[in-house]
């Protein structure tokens, strides 16, 4: 190896230039990525604020004539909360337990490998297909009709693989040394998972779940096939058609009057706020549970 005698030299012009150019490119890429985000938010806020009022949040579309102003999305907000809530109740326990099995018990067993394969397959299912499946199976074959719960089933098909994958990732991040430290204290494996592994991964798991919820909260196609559409309040998610915010936006956008278009924008604003609140909640939980806070 030939080396010049060791002299400490200033950073060459060439390197400075390259550094500048690459820095510029990185900024450019960042700006390009942010432009669509900012413009979407700006557009939704600008158009949505016109009808984002108390009436909108507290009234349904019942008895609102085709050209009438007024009316609201109360029935849709209620529907979305119930559908997404039920979907979460179904998919989180199943997803969590699946991930725990894959990481803590599977260890290369054939069952674990095939579950992992099917989770991958599920991740790729288009949301329309999930809706069609529930339509065919739940609504038509079992004859249980349209309902919020049928929609929740379709949404949970979409949520489950996301929950499994994100939880799995978080559990794998927990250092094995912590498990061993717990075993070495004479703590059984199940208790180690419950009291050491899960709390350590807690913030990551919650963030993953919140993101999964946010993902499905805006799904339209599967709800169209399973929840259908209504203008009235239906508090019971188990019987009869319901509304949901994505359905509401879709429905109002399809109507010819400006009053309806305004309602659609307000619905979009509500949906975005809902997703943002979820993210905020995830952050607050993460901060509250963070060990660095030094309770």
């Amino acid at each position, binding site marked *: 190896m030939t080396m010049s005698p060791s002299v400490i030299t200033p950073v060459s012009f060439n390197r400075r230039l390259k550094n500048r150019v690459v820095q510029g490119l990185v900024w450019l890429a960042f700006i390009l990525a942010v432009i669509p985000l900012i413009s979407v938010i700006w557009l939704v806020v600008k158009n949505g604020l016109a009808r984002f009022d108390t009436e909108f949040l507290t009234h349904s579309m019942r008895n609102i004539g085709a050209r009438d102003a007024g009316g609201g999305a109360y029935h849709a907000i209620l529907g979305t909360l119930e559908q997404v809530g039920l979907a979460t109740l179904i998919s989180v326990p199943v997803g969590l337990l699946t991930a725990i099995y894959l990481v803590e018990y599977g*260890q*290369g067993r054939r069952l674990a490998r095939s579950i992992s394969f099917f989770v991958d397959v599920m991740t790729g299912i288009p949301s329309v297909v999930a809706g069609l499946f529930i339509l065919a199976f739940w609504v038509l074959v079992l004859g249980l009709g349209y309902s919020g719960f049928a929609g929740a089933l379709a949404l949970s098909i979409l949520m489950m693989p996301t929950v499994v994958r994100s939880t799995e990732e978080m559990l794998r991040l927990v*250092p094995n*040394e*912590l498990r*061993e*430290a*717990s*075993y*070495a*204290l*004479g*703590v*059984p494996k199940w*208790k*180690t998972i419950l*009291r*050491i592994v899960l*709390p*350590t991964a*807690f913030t990551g798991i919650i963030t993953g779940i919140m993101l999964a919820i946010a993902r499905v909260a805006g799904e339209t196609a599967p709800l169209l096939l399973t929840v259908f559409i209504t203008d009235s309040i239906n508090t019971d998610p188990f019987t009869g058609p319901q509304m949901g915010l994505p359905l509401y936006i879709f429905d109002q956008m399809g109507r010819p009057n400006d009053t309806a278009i305004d309602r659609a924008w307000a619905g979009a604003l509500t949906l975005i706020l809902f997703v943002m609140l979820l993210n905020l909640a995830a952050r607050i939980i993460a901060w509250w*549970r963070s*060990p*660095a806070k*030094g*309770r």
Partner: protein
Amino acid sequence: MAKQIEVSDLDAYYGSHKAIEGITMTVEPRSVTAFIGPSGCGKSTFLRTLNRMHEVIPGARVQGKIMLEDQDLYDKDVDPVSVRRTVGMVFQRPNPFPTMSIFDNVAAGLRLNGRISKSEAQGIVETSLKDANLWNEVKDRLNKPGSGLSGGQQQRLCIARAIAVSPAVLLMDEPCSALDPISTLAIEDLIAKLKNDYTIVIVTHNMQQAARVSDRTAFFNLAGQGQPGKLVEMDETSKIFTNPTQKATEDYITGRFG
């Protein structure tokens, strides 16, 4: 209460790979036994067979017999979980539970193994931290996370956590290798104190440390690449370091190999 360990003809495997072979030895109670030997000769593996931590690794298994006083550790009726309550362990890298405070770390073994009252926990946490020579440094911040301590303090916290469940034996796998000299001395002082109450086994790469802290020393070696590790000889520490019977031991401690 310290207990004696008697190992006879022990083999340990990782899958089909035999890591150690034919180990027979007696570990005396209320004393410090040091394991020395080149890397990869199976010291950690052997140490982990002593509290049935070896079998935690998928595909790992053990053949042979280990008696803890009159208990056969590998009897098929024995619950490995209860073995680990009796034979505690301290690891190479300090590993306090990151979600827990200093107090909760020390109390973890007690709490996870059953309900104990708050006052009972307080008493045990205080004595364990005092025994681990850490009490004075942390008594004002017991509710702060354990991960905020220095490496040496964390390791003493882990020792406190291990002795809080009052085991009979304490296994230490290179407990000082990630620590600075001052912290190392603190741990060595602690080991000298703990041996009054516990049977202590320590793996170390540091000859001086073995000479300083241990009463008996076991030298492990492997015949060649891919061969299982074996116990070459075991004797009083002073004898091993001044007048070993085996040539390999002498070569190793005088630094001719390893």
